[in-house]
């Protein structure tokens, strides 16, 4: 299996997913938390700051407007107090006074007039023809006649343009008279209009009925009814008397309202600004934060993706290398077992060779005597030659056995009859078993199906297990039983000995590489791990059951497809 295919393996896929998830969570969580907290703190403090700033601004403007109104009132009060009604009833004198006021304050004062107790304007100075105008029914007159001074709401009046008036009441000969001055709406309005912030921030004034007292700079979409006035007055009120409220207008735009009462509570100076405009800096900051989070998020996502992919690729590589190493260990083990086998076989060859050498020596001994022709010696020659031939044949058989094993060291998959392999193993080990006083028995099921696997590998596994069994029985002899049988779709091969058994502490570790109980130099500790590797590779199972002093049994289960 190559690396590409491996990456599609569910195990590696889930590993990639887990890594991706962890990296994203660990990286994004602090980013979002920190940005969130900072943004929240910033937004709260910006809100407070903006409100404080607007509150102060509105307060200052209301004081400014109040101051303007008071100043104009004082101008008129001074005039009413300084001159008698007779002097003021002189139209020429009144005109001069108006001219003096206009010189001093610009076009703030539009006109002046003296109104008697019947509500008739006795004298008038100004651009309109309002002499003898009757104000007895006008609302302002009814209020003005009752108090020392009075400032009216903005109204259209007789002249038909918006204006408001300031009146001062004086007594002459037991009868009240009123000096009234018209304040130019334009002049007044500019003071309110001056209050402009940002793109949408502007101010206007409402009276207690909710009517405009100034010209709003922008279209105020609210009906500007009494309810609007009330709702602004019901907003949050600071100790300076500034009201804060937020409302959506008819178009759904969220507006910010800051208001303050002026003219002794008659009028309300209202500052209105589109919320998005007022908080444009905050919105901007939010956008930057969002941009950073998004960009960071994307970078993190890409990094996490690349990182986890690369890491998993590395892991796959490492796993592949590990498998390759296992494969190499198996190869080495194969060589080692071949070496062991070779040593055993060399020993087996030694015996017939020794006999042949002795027979040849015997023939030589007879020849030295010089008696070739005697019948007895001739028979002896023939016997010796026959013996040499027999022993030579024995050598040849042993060598052929070794060759057949060496030839099959390649791991090609072939149809293997397991019983034949078991019989081979038994014959390989027969000699050794004989000298260790071990009896090898076999209980092989007849007509087992052939099984597709490497002949060498299964031989190696069985030889290894057999050698282990023989090792365990070396000291005192015993029995080894080899069994083969079919269980469903599985071929079960077992090798059981009645040796000393494996202590429980070691049982779990016997398949670990390099685990050995043999003295240094005797065992590599690779045998069983190689067996395990081979059986796993084939797709089988190997397990062990062992009871101390009763014996050990290895079971190998091999999957087999029935070919018949």
């Amino acid at each position, binding site marked *: 299996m190559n690396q590409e295919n491996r990456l599609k393996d569910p195990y590696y896929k889930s590993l990639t997913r887990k890594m991706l998830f962890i990296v994203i969570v660990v990286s994004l969580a602090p980013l979002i938390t920190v940005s969130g907290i900072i943004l929240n703190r910033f937004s709260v403090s910006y809100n407070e700051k903006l409100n404080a700033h607007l509150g102060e601004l509105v307060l200052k403007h209301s004081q400014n407007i109040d101051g303007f109104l008071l100043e104009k009132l004082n101008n008129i009060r001074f005039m009413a107090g300084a001159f008698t009604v007779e002097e003021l009833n002189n139209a020429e004198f009144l005109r001069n006074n108006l001219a003096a006021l206009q010189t001093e304050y610009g076009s703030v004062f539009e006109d002046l007039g003296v109104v008697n107790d019947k509500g008739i304007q006795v004298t008038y100075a100004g651009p309109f023809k309002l002499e003898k105008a009757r104000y007895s029914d006008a609302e302002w007159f009814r209020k003005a006649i009752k108090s020392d001074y009075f400032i009216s709401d903005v109204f259209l009046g007789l002249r038909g343009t918006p204006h408001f008036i300031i009146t001062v009441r004086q007594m002459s000969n037991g009868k009240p008279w009123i000096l009234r001055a018209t304040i130019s709406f334009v002049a007044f309005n500019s003071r309110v209009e001056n209050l402009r912030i940002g793109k949408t921030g502007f101010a206007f004034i409402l009276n207690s009925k909710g009517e405009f007292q100034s010209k709003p700079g922008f279209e105020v979409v609210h009906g500007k009814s009494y309810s609007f006035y009330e709702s602004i007055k019901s907003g949050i009120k600071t100790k300076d008397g500034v009201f804060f409220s937020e409302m959506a207008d008819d178009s759904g735009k969220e507006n910010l309202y800051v208001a303050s009462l002026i003219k002794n509570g008659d009028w309300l100076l209202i500052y209105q600004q589109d919320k998005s405009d007022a908080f444009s800096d905050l919105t901007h900051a939010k956008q930057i934060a969002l941009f950073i989070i998004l960009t960071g998020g994307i970078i993190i996502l890409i990094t996490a993706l690349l990182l986890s992919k690369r890491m998993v690729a590395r892991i796959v590589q490492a796993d592949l290398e590990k498998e390759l190493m296992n494969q190499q260990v198996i190869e080495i083990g194969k060589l080692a077992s071949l070496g062991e086998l070779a040593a055993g076989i*060399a*020993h087996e060859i*030694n015996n017939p060779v020794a006999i042949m050498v*002795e027979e040849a020596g015997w023939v030589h001994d007879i020849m030295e005597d010089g008696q070739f022709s005697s019948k007895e010696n001739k028979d002896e020659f023939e016997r010796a030659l026959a013996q040499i031939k027999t022993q030579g044949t024995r050598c040849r058989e042993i060598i052929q056995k070794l060759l057949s094993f060496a030839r099959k060291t390649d791991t090609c998959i072939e149809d293997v009859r397991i019983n034949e392999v078991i019989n081979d193993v038994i014959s390989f080990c027969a000699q050794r078993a004989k*000298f260790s006083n071990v009896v090898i028995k076999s209980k092989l099921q007849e007509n087992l199906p052939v099984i597709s696997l490497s002949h060498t590998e299964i031989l190696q596994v069985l030889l290894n297990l057999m050698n282990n069994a023989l090792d365990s029985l070396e000291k005192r002899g015993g029995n080894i039983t080899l069994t083969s049988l079919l269980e469903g779709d599985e071929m079960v091969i077992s090798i059981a000995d009645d040796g000393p058994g494996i202590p429980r502490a070691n049982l779990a570790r016997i398949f670990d590489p390099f685990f050995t109980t043999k003295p240094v130099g005797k065992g590599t500790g690779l045998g069983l791990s190689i067996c395990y590797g081979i059986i796993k590779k084939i797709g089988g199972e190997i397990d062990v059951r062992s009871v101390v002093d009763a014996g050990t049994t290895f079971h190998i289960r091999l999957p087999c497809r029935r070919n018949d």
Partner: protein
Amino acid sequence: MDELRVLLVGDEREFLEILLKRLLKRGIKVAGASSGEEAIKIIKETPPDVVLLDVRLQGMDGIHTLREIKKIGPLVEVIMLTGHANLEIAVEGMESGAFDYLMKPTDVDELLYKLEDAFKRKTIQEQKIRRLEKLKGSERG
């Protein structure tokens, strides 16, 4: 000086027989035993001077047999016959009191030398013992 008497112990019949023949031809009094147990029995009845012992034996193994022999007759010299693969057993045998070891296949002349060496040693040992016994006897006397 007595004649050299040898006991050959080995479980491979063919090998045992031919070696017996060759040694007999050289005028050595030699008997054969096909197992450790049989060898012990023979040694108990008619003790030989030297035992040529194949270490690979069925039943009682070579080392075991060697120790038994040394128990019954400490003066009986033992030469071990080993294959290439079990030099360790040779070492163990030497430690257990064997006179020497020989590797199969053997050269018959070398075998003869070793047998004679072993016999010589045994004879010297016996002479020493006899001398000591004589001394002991005279002291008592």
